[in-house]
């Protein structure tokens, strides 16, 4: 387990001028959990990840792995503890995918980096886990950004470290790629008992598959807790809030804040309620449970059977038309 006490992170450009990013951070990174670090751009997510993984020295405070101070580890020892996936551009376009993934075995191989049969098996496994086995003999340069990201994740898997740290791993991936990847990371943490820490802007995926949230902001520094505790205690409410963007605790999404001029009384089956409210909110209605104060009464039977103030409508498009012309 990784623990930090009163950790100050930042860059050390020279002795006179430290660039401190955050002071007095206290946290612990739990084994067997997928931890998602959220924060707006420029709040120091990458700096924190680099400090934890030993690429940047802590400026003050303590950072320990299983009770041993991080700075007492050699580069070689750290390579067997942390596997990183960074946002750095590589110059490895001329390497085959299999060579790139094999680089993950670097800390485990001998002087010339020759792989034995066990290493080959680990590399094959890593490629199949992220689903790039069919591209093993393609050049890295021939891959899409998303596939390159998967290659780097396979490299990290091949490194076989107890801790995996990934800086915005889903950035270049499409929606199915993101879900697949987050699912993979979650099962690595839960089933193989690895410690997985990622930074991401993808709040939806983080809330869905992250076991623990770390919220990093300039005002509140680092707040952490189990995902549901964080959401329900209101930790997310003001987190990304800049003026008109608000967090909706009931479904974990962000919405622009509308000026609600009117209220609507809604009756709908559970599976249609979300989308009904979605349309009403977008058109300036808030929902109410009190029929008397509502200016419209909406009753949904099915997507093609909608009653607005008693009039039968056959689609949501018609409902929108009705809302606009009132």
């Amino acid at each position, binding site marked *: 387990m990784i623990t930090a006490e009163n950790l100050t992170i930042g860059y050390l450009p020279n002795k006179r001028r430290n660039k401190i990013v955050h002071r007095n951070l206290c946290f612990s990174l739990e084994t067997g959990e997928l931890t998602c670090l959220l924060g707006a751009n420029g709040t120091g997510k990458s700096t924190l990840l*680099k400090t934890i*993984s030993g*690429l940047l020295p802590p400026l003050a405070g303590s950072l320990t792995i299983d009770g041993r101070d991080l700075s007492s580890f050699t*580069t*070689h020892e*750290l*390579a*067997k503890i*942390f*596997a*990183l996936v*960074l946002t*750095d*551009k*590589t*110059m*490895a*376009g*001329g*390497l*085959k995918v299999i*060579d*790139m993934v094999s*680089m*993950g075995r*670097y*800390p485990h*191989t001998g*002087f*010339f*980096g020759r792989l034995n049969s066990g290493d080959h098996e680990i590399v094959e496994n890593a490629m199949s886990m992220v689903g790039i086995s069919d591209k093993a003999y393609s*050049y*890295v*340069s*021939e891959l899409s950004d998303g596939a390159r990201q998967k290659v780097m994740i396979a490299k990290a898997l091949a*490194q076989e470290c107890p801790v995996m740290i990934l800086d915005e791993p889903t950035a270049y991936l499409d929606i199915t790629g993101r879900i697949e990847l987050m699912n993979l990371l979650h099962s690595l943490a839960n089933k193989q008992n690895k410690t997985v820490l990622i930074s991401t802007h993808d709040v939806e995926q983080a809330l869905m598959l992250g076991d623990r949230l770390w919220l990093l902001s300039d005002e509140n520094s680092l707040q952490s807790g189990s995902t549901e505790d964080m959401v329900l205690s209101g930790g997310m409410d003001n987190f990304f809030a800049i003026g008109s963007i608000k967090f909706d605790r009931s479904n974990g999404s962000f919405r622009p804040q509308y000026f609600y001029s009117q209220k609507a009384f809604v009756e709908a089956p559970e599976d249609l309620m979300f989308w009904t409210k979605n349309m009403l909110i977008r058109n300036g209605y808030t929902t109410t449970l009190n029929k008397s104060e509502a200016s419209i009464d909406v009753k949904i039977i099915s997507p093609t059977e909608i009653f607005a103030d008693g009039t039968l409508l056959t689609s949501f498009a018609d409902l929108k038309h009705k809302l606009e012309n009132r």
Partner: protein
Amino acid sequence: MKHSRFAILLLPLSLIVCLFAANLFAGSVKIPASSVIDILFGGETSKETWQYIVLYSRLPQAVTALFAGAALATAGLMLQTVFANPLAGPSILGIDSGASLGVALVMLMFGGTLGVFSADFGISGYLSVILGAFIGSILVLGVIIFMSTFVRSNIMLLIIGIMIGYLTSSVVSLLSFFSTAEGVFSYTIWGMGDFSGVSLRQLPIFCTFIAIGLFVAVILIKPLNALLLGERYAANLGVNVKRMRIMLLIATGILISVTTAFCGPIAFIGLTVPHIARLLLGTSNHNLLLPLTLLIGSTIALLCNLISVLPAATGMIPLNAITPVLGAPVIIYVIVNRNKIQYFN
């Protein structure tokens, strides 16, 4: 499968054997092949001058080309990997102009007193030339590596290298202006580049230095591969990046400065050969790329040396008149096709 991968090394190896022999048999003086063989195997020969030409001129020249080519090509490959820039090379980064400045300082300021490049040179003269070249190239290499920590753009770094080249040549011009005619002449001849500057007596020193540099390069194969992923990934894989950079600085410094001190600043071999090797091999993996680059470097150097002695009557063509003819088209080809070449992307 493993055997077929190493088979690609056989091609340059056999070419090296042929070209090495050709270098011994061909030259400005026509010597019958049978006599050359006799001389090489210690037999008697009809003319004593022939024996002298083969053993004291052609043999050391061929061995020098063999080692110098390997040294420059390997140094070029290491620079391209370290700077993550396929267009890096000893001459473009200004490293051999640094060596030239060191040599100019020694030759032009102390040229007369040390008797460098005169017929009965002192070994101290040569050592001071080597030392000048070594200090000059290490200094420039250090400056470039230091610059590379905050100049992130590769193109900008190359331009800085070119600027350093201009700066050193302005100092060299100044030195020439105040120097003796002899000094300027020997410096100019040196600057044209040739493999005949190493005598049989100096050959062991030359070869030992190059062998040390090449040895360091070979032991750095694994970390060089890690560096392809960038410094931070390399560090995460357990590479001590700082120590690695110092080792590379020393290895490339030795290879470039020793070659430049003895043979002059030879252009294009360091820049071009790694490209030829990568294009032939189809991978940036140094396990095979480095040995192949080393061998092709020797091949090209031996070929250039052979071409330089071809015009029998008029003496030798300067190497720097030949290497660009072979090297520039390759670089232009690589740049034009960079979108199709994997290691550029």
